[in-house]
């Protein structure tokens, strides 16, 4: 078996899950560790449900099997629930308190669970719930939401915070380095208390 630390990042196409997974990959390189990942490309990105798999110290395939994930980072409440079966029983969840309803809910009048119902269902796992949108604005840009999420998850990730911050600095646009470092630190502080 692989012995890897398996992280699933999920959300909606366009929310920045790919940058978050790139930061994790870069941080692994900084630490000289192997890493494997897989992500959604092509038309599936157009507002659809997207998933990035990252296997830290992974040597083999890029896909995490259901029930094997160590950590689930979700940018949306509904997507957290959709992918929750990928977590181990003792796996951890870091979830943005944000719910975008699929358009099908309005056009086809489909039933949808309420925020509270979703949160209740997620509590089956160790759950860290945060308002990443608000924290990102406080850090200086709503676009740093994905880095806030990563920061909040970072206490559970077996990579040093220095490596993660270095990876953030390498990968975000030059003009936004300060904002993103702040976003990471705010997220990390919050995540440490979860």
């Amino acid at each position: 078996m692989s012995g890897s630390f398996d992280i699933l990042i999920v959300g909606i196409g366009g929310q920045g899950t790919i940058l978050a997974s790139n930061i994790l990959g870069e941080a692994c390189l900084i630490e000289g560790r192997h890493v494997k990942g897989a992500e959604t490309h092509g038309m599936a990105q157009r507002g659809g449900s997207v998933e990035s798999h990252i296997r830290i110290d992974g040597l083999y395939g890029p896909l995490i099997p259901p029930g094997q994930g160590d950590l689930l980072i979700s940018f949306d409440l509904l997507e957290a629930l959709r992918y929750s079966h990928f977590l181990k029983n003792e796996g951890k969840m870091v979830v943005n308190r944000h719910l975008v309803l699929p358009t099908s809910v309005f056009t086809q009048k489909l039933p949808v669970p309420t925020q509270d119902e979703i949160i209740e269902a997620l509590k089956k796992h160790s759950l860290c719930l945060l308002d990443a949108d608000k924290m990102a604005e406080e850090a200086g840009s709503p676009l740093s939401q994905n880095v806030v999420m990563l920061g909040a998850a970072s206490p559970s990730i077996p990579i040093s915070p220095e490596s993660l911050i270095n990876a953030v600095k390498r990968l975000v646009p030059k003009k936004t380095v300060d904002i993103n470092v702040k976003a990471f630190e705010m997220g990390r502080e919050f995540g440490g208390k979860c």
Partner: protein
Amino acid sequence: MGRKYLLGNEAIAHACVESGVGFISGYPGTPSSEVIDVLRVHPDRSYYVEWSVNEKVALENALAAAWCGVRSLCTMKHVGLNVASDPLMTSAYTGVTAGLVIMSADDPFAHSSQNEQDSRCYAHFARLPCLDPASIQEAHDMIPEAFTLSEEFGLPVIFRPTTRICHSKGDVDLGEPVAGLRKGEFHKDPRQYVVIPAHTRVLHKKLNEKQPALRKRLVERGYNHHKIEGSTAIIASGIGATYVQEIIPTGVSFMKIGAYPIDEEWMGDFVRKHEKILVIEELAPEVEETVRQVAGCVPVLGKKNGYASYEGELSLLAVAGIMEKAGFLKKNPFPEGNPVQQLPPRPPILCAGCLHRSAFYAIKKVFKDAIYPSDIGCYTLGLQLGVVDTTICMGASITVASGISHAGDTRDIVCTIGDSTFLHTGIQGLLNAVYNGADITVVILDNRITAMTGHQPNPNSGMTACGAESPAVSLDALCRACGVSFVESVNPYDITGMVTVLQEAKKRKGVKVIIAKQMCVISARRAGINRGRYRVNPEICTGCGTCVRFGCPAIEFADEKALVNDLCSGCAVCAQLCPTGAIVREGKK
């Protein structure tokens, strides 16, 4: 060059630069597109690179460059190889002088495709070597060797990564870039390059004579290798081999296939040393067929006797399941996993402000009981709006429409096709429809870009793959040249205008073309176009739901009123649809 964390396609692109490639062509298609998307903007490119209009055109260009002694790469998705199959089959006869690598990316599970065909079958059919990487690192390392192999045997090499290679990521050890040779020279040799019957019979024999040495060489190069550990064995290929390696129990022998054709003698020796063989591979039973040919009385478990599936993609869970069924694992170590049931699905959807949605809306308004053949592009998502009745392959909208027309169905037929698809293989269908007197309306959804695969330019965009200016084709003149007399261009954001033109087309007989022109909303955003945003005045909104049924992701409904969320791109179509005028531009009363 060191180690980097890269997407599979980025690693493949880098390996091409390390191989001194001089000529690159292709047509975008998921999961292959990023290879050229990386190469066309590479900072120190010394090679020629183009997006071609289709895969046949791309391959013929690349073949000619390889004849001139320039290392060439041609990329496409698996179904693109169907389009390129005509030159492919005979390129095996003519051969090449410099290396020609044809990357045909397969898509098991059809994540982004119309079928699950297997490019290895084409390699078999054409008698060409095929490399089938099991990991990103191997995909990277195979590329320089594919060029060498191509030159050694004088044959094009098919390189066949799958979605989980192309769109996976990993740490990859890279080599140094090498400047490619661009000074090609064509040496005339009619017996090689003019495939009249007298020449081609000789070339066919030569192709067949290359096969035994080729099979041996692929083993020598280490693409196909094995390790004997016990009395039972697993033989696996592609990414399936990687999954097997993660969970194979000790005491089970393992053979990895990464290249075709397989040396049967070599495989037979291995197989006959075992009492039971399990074959694990994605899609067609390409390896399994060979195993069965050499197995004699050794039992072989695979797709043909129901141990593994012909469809879909493999995963660790699926491979463990096959190994359990075949008695190689006592118990599948991975739990089934119970997804939460009955959550509303979140499929991909046309963007807020997409021109296709408003064009479809107008089509449906004018042609209520019509038949709607469509094509391959973002607009295939029009299925959700009930205006896509057929999709087969690139260019098969106009042809299906004319076929239905001549079959005698008396309903109106309105087909939709994107600009890039029209230029790919749609023009011939239009020419044929006019020539043979079909009675159809063709709507060309013209967003001036190949949007679905990642916004690659095409002859309609006014620039080349590398951003150089090039004359934008006139779709209007092209359609008129095909003999269409009713050709109208219209802005699909103007619902009234588009409805008027469609009504006019409905009255006429013959082939009518309407060009619905509007920039892709993603390109517009990138170009800095800001149309402002719209909002619903809750005092005027009656909650009738007209705007909600339009299906735009920027429109929500809560407390019996519609509301516009921050995805709004300002196309203003919903404001035109609202019967009470409740949707207004932000900042206005």
